[in-house]
């Protein structure tokens, strides 16, 4: 027994580390598309570390927030990298949320039995956007104050709890009260909620396991690889690559600090890039601040989508309707983002935006259904893939047999 073994045994016999149920994972999960959520977790850890370091120097308050931010950039060793890495990782996190969301949507990962993981996921997405929103305020620049005021204004239009939400942020209306609340939300409340949700999300993932590739009919696992060392080194690898990538980008392309709130330098008010699309929709006459209702409907739709899309096939080729819907949304997002940057705060009349929106719907549904009708007969499993219609009794039967397959598998796997 080596010295290392002795120490390890001492620790393990007390901390029971080797009893932690890190199950062997199927071989097909050795693929980056199975790790978009893992990357999100890695990004979150990075934000926690850089955030704590930033907190050592940041001082909230109307007269100090901006100057302490300048101090971090100009005086603190590597401060400019620290601040920019925190900023870029926030962007990466939002981007990864999109990727994780679309990936799980297209492969139908929200279907039984993963509905809860999906709903918790949507809640996490909201918390992450909230973190970005509250973080944007902290340096107290002109644009960030405007963005915050607009955000608070929209929040106050929220049905029923609008004023409560707004006062959650503004406190008693003084700027010091607002700083207190924004900082609390950003560094304490939202991260705590996110960690709680993440714990549940991971528990559900551990229990329901990864969604197999769409080409696999039943929930079969095939051959597996063990966590230690295979997946351990894999996760460590992608984590370090992500962190390294962000640190390099932050060092090479630091973002200049916008003018301080209350200066007279005129800059175009603009939210962060992931909110530019809804920002543009505010220009659509007569939507304006009613955008809050549209966003609410979108969020509720995606939360409930596991209960709308009840076909048992996960394959996007079998789900033209739901694939079209999310693609329309993606197209809107990209189009309105570009449009928002090109023509910020330029009003758009209904004769312009309604045809554009309808055109995108027609194009996406046309294309998706066109491909669907052209290719559905030649798919590998042939005529069995018709699970799109809800009323098909044959589907119901398959559903039960799938469920029992699932149970069989569980028994077989438990060791």
């Amino acid at each position, binding site marked *: 027994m080596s010295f290392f073994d002795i120490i390890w045994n001492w620790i393990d016999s007390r901390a029971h580390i080797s009893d932690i149920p890190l199950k062997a994972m199927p071989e097909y999960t050795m693929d980056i598309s199975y790790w978009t959520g893992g990357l999100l977790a890695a990004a979150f850890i990075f934000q926690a570390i850089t955030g704590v370091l930033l907190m050592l120097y940041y001082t909230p308050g109307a007269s100090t927030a901006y100057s302490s931010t300048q101090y971090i950039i100009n005086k603190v060793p590597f401060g400019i990298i620290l601040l920019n890495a925190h900023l870029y990782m926030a962007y990466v996190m939002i981007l990864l949320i999109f990727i994780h969301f679309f990936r799980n949507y297209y492969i139908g990962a929200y279907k039984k039995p993963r509905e809860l993981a999906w709903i918790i996921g949507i809640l996490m997405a909201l918390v992450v956007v909230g973190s970005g929103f509250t973080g944007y305020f902290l340096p107290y620049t002109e644009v960030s*104050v*405007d963005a915050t005021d607009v955000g608070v*204004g929209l929040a106050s239009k929220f049905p029923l709890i609008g004023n409560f939400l707004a*006062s959650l942020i503004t*406190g*008693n209306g003084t700027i010091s009260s607002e700083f207190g609340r924004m900082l609390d939300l950003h560094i304490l409340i939202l991260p705590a909620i996110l960690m709680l949700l993440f714990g549940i999300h991971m528990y559900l993932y551990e229990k329901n396991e990864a969604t197999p590739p769409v080409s696999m009919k039943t929930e079969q696992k095939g051959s597996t690889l063990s966590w230690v060392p295979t997946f351990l080194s894999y996760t460590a690898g992608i984590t370090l690559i992500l962190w390294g990538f962000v640190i390099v980008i932050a060092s090479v392309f630091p973002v200049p600090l916008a003018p*301080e709130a209350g*200066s*007279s330098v005129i800059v175009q008010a603009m939210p962060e890039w992931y909110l530019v699309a809804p920002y543009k929709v505010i220009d659509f006459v*007569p939507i304006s601040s009613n955008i809050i209702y549209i966003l609410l409907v979108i969020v509720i739709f995606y939360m409930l989508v596991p209960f709308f899309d009840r076909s048992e096939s996960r394959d996007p080729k079998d789900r033209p309707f739901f694939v079209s819907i999310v693609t329309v949304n993606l197209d809107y997002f990209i189009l309105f983002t570009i449009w928002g940057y090109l023509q910020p705060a330029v009003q758009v009349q209904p004769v312009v935006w309604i045809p554009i929106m309808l055109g995108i719907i027609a194009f996406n549904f046309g294309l998706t259904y066109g491909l669907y009708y052209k290719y559905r007969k030649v798919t590998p499993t042939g005529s069995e893939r018709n699970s799109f219609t809800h009323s098909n009794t044959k589907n119901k039967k398959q559903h039960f047999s799938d469920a029992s397959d699932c149970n069989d598998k569980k028994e077989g796997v438990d060791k």
Partner: protein
Amino acid sequence: MSKKENEIDLSRRKFLKMVSIGSAVVALGAFAPSLSYIVAPTIGVSEFPALTLVDSSGNPIKASTIAVNNPQIVLFDYPLLNEPNFLLNLGKSVPGGVGPQNSIVAYSAICEHLGCLPPSIKFYPPGSPPIDGYTSYIHCSCHGSTFDPFNRCSIITSPTTKPQPMVVLTYDSSTDTLQAVKMNGPVIYGHTDDLTGGSPPKGNTAPVTTLNNQ
């Protein structure tokens, strides 16, 4: 017949369950009202104060010296300290205007649309690029709302659905000084009423400041 020692008394178990659930509900119920403390107690004033407009050293501003169509952003807080207003001298008599030429007006500087602040919302003096035919206006670059300062800050372009609130000023021609006495028009943006949701003014003056480059 006596019960066996290890037989489970189901009714007793049920009773204990009900008691625990009941007390949990009561505890949660007691917790619920405490949520209301998240909403901070309101602060403010009980009636409109009369504040004399003063410069940074506390001397009353002379109305006849206020620059006409000044492109700089000139502000004072009224009635509360988080309620900034533009102070404008438009150079000619306008509705609601005071001063020697009835040309001095003050409007809230918080955009009624969704709350952007100066310099995003700002006064553009005559000769600015036309918007709907107007060459002088108050315009907010956040979403493009435009207001007419020559006519009680009424709406020139959407998306705003409300005009900017107007500060009622009084002019004392013997001393050439100005006082803010109340607000007219819609409620100041972001406030449930003009007098709550911010710190009360200090003393009975409102210092006028000019935004400068950093």
